């Protein structure tokens, strides 16, 4: 039956009425999420024909060179890859405008004003400094290309049958890639331009206020009270991004979710949350809308990227760790809240904050439970980001550091940013493997959230209420926004595959680099920030302290992560070096 508890991340009522579809926030989250995605489709899909032509031309230009040999990756292979990556649907005028419109605060290190403003003279000075650094790197990359071309030509003359010449070409090409990568990173910093973000932030805040205000009005709440309250939530959200874009905080991997909760809790437990802000403290509404947008980036074709070895590391280890940790949490550690147990399991085994959000919403966890999970993840992510590459460098055999090390880090470090940082520290290949394993785990969020929603609806809630759960009761209780989340994932996965069937690379260009990065992602981060600020503003230390008694969540996290580290390493070794060594050799 109906539950009303303001503490929950998501609250659902056990009864169905058709009017829910325009009165309940679950459905409004779906409508608003799909509205944004539909706008993305309208803006970017007309580009499909043009991008298809571009990709076909690229294939025609480089494909022959790319497939000259299967002994190593030729220069043509890399050029084909580089050229395809540049094809992006979001590179149109509207896409660029949207990117400015939804941009978060800029990076800054010591001068806080740089987060919002940079003068013409400061931009010119920054640009000149970057150009001075980039020019020699560019020249070195051009030189390395000439050497690589000569080495490849030699190997080709021998019909790619001479192992030594092949090896020399491989080394020269790898050297060219390294210098080219450094040059292109340095080159990207030469594009420094003056900016004034304040106007954009005001416009974005006003747009969000109206966007969510319409939903609130439709749900019978006061539009005016919401708008007034939203100004405060928005200010704290901007402050959170301001802190997250500070250079040191970025280096330590302390992202916006932490700062949003931190500032929210700090305000509510010191000067108190202003009463006028309370109508806009709508954790569930923001989180569910963000999750529908997240669904669009869960693309099932992505999981084939790293082949069978990767699927075993990401999709077999992860649910095993989840279930074992949950079991131990209930049976031996005796975590009092099943929802906290589930949220920590997803946070630790799947992919940190995004998985914690999805699971907390799917199992209707309390806001303090989500806060605690995010906090645990943050602490361990920062530690693992530094410790794991050091362990790999000092203990792993040199030939296994990049792939085995990358897969190990990708499967265990919670946050994607930290995975990329740790991977990049070991080398480009480790970065690619680690980031790809993490990406495949990201795709698992949808499956896990659905499984958790079903489990809590049919088992946990049935036990709590003492009622047998029939098919209709499952439907009543099932968090409806999950339907929007899964539907977005299925629809965009199908579109992605159909684009790729037209010409290889059209899916990433249209969906990844179009609707997802050019629309959904621009707003998703902000929506999650709004929800975390709301969680913080409605939390007090006493409630949070209750969950920390006995250190059980910490024990659970440490157990789960230790098990995760052992199992991931074992499975990664078996899959990459025992079962599929020939696949590993191609990476």
């Amino acid at each position, binding site marked *: 039956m109906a539950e009303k508890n303001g503490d929950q991340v998501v609250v659902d009522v056990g009864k169905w009425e058709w009017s829910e579809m325009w009165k309940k926030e679950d459905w409004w989250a779906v409508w608003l999420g799909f509205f944004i995605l539909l706008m993305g489709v309208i803006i970017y899909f007309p580009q499909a024909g043009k991008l298809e032509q571009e990709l076909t031309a690229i294939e025609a230009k480089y494909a022959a060179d790319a497939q000259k040999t299967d002994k190593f*990756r030729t220069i043509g292979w890399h050029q084909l*890859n580089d050229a395809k*990556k540049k094809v992006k649907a979001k590179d149109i005028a509207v896409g660029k405008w949207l990117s400015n419109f939804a941009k978060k605060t800029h990076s800054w290190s010591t001068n806080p004003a740089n987060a919002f403003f940079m003068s013409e003279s400061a931009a010119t000075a920054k640009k000149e400094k970057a150009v001075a650094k980039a020019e020699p790197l560019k020249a070195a990359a051009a030189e390395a290309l000439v050497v690589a071309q000569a080495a490849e030509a030699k190997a080709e003359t021998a019909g790619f049958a001479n192992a030594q010449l092949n090896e020399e070409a491989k080394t020269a090409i790898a050297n060219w890639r390294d210098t080219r990568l450094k040059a292109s*990173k340095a080159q990207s910093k030469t594009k420094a331009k003056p900016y004034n973000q304040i106007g954009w932030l005001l416009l974005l805040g006003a747009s969000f206020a109206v966007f969510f205000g319409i939903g609130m009005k439709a749900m019978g709440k006061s539009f005016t009270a919401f708008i007034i309250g939203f100004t405060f939530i928005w200010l704290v959200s901007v402050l959170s991004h301001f*802190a*997250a874009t500070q250079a*040191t*905080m*970025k*280096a330590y991997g302390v*992202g916006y*979710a932490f700062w949003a909760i931190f500032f929210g809790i*700090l305000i*509510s437990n*010191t*000067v*108190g*949350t*202003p*009463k006028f802000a309370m109508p806009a403290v709508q954790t569930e509404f923001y989180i569910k809308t963000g999750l529908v947008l997240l669904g669009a980036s869960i693309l099932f074709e992505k999981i*084939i990227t790293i*082949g*069978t070895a990767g*699927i*075993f590391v990401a999709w*077999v280890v*992860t*649910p*095993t760790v989840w*279930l074992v940790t949950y079991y131990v949490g*209930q*049976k031996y550690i005796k975590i009092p809240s099943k929802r906290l147990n589930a949220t920590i399991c997803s946070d630790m085994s799947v*992919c940190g904050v*995004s998985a914690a959000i999805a699971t907390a919403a799917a199992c209707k966890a309390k806001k303090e439970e989500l806060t605690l999970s995010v906090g645990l993840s943050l602490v361990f992510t920062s530690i693992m980001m*530094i410790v794991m*590459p050091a362990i790999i460098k000092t203990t792993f055999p040199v030939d296994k550091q990049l792939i085995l090390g990358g897969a190990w880090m990708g499967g265990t470090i919670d*946050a994607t*940013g*930290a995975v*990329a*940082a740790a*991977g*990049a*520290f070991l080398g480009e290949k480790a970065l*690619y493997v680690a*980031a*790809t394993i*993490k*990406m495949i785990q990201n795709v*698992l969020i949808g*499956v896990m959230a659905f499984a958790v929603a079903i489990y809590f609806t049919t*088992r946990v809630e049935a036990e709590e209420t003492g009622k047998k759960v029939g098919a209709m009761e499952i439907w009543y209780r099932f968090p409806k926004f999950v339907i929007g989340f899964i539907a977005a994932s299925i629809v965009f996965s199908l579109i992605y595959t159909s684009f790729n069937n037209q010409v*290889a690379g059209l899916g990433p260009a249209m969906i990844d*680099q179009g609707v997802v*990065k050019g629309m959904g*992602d621009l707003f998703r981060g902000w929506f999650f920030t709004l929800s975390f600020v709301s969680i913080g503003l*409605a939390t007090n230390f006493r409630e949070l302290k209750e969950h920390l008694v006995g250190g059980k969540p910490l024990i659970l996290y440490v157990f789960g992560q230790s098990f995760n580290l052992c199992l991931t390493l074992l499975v990664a070794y078996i899959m990459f070096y025992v079962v599929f060594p020939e*696949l590993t050799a*191609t*990476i």
Partner: protein
Amino acid sequence: MQTANNTTMNKKKGWLVLLSVLFMVYIFGVFIGPWLQQHIFGMDEIVTVMEESGIDGGAYYYTEIEGATDGYAYLDQSLQFLAPEHYGLTLPFISGIIICLLILYFGFRCLPR
């Protein structure tokens, strides 16, 4: 200004704590954090790599990281060109997905009541 709940502090103390914490955060970000960075084993090197590669250590999702896009393109093309027999929906690959779903199905059924 009326406040909603949570705090038991008086106004003056509340503001003092709030501003002190914000100041401490600033001090950590600008002075203590960078100093610590040089004294934690390996941290400085990781930060240099992050700055050079433009990686945001605070990113939460693969779409926020350029490395994921590059890695996807690199590995996808590597498999397609160099090991096409391992690319796509191969039998071992499908078995991996089925095993995952079976683990979830039986695992959730076996969880303690």
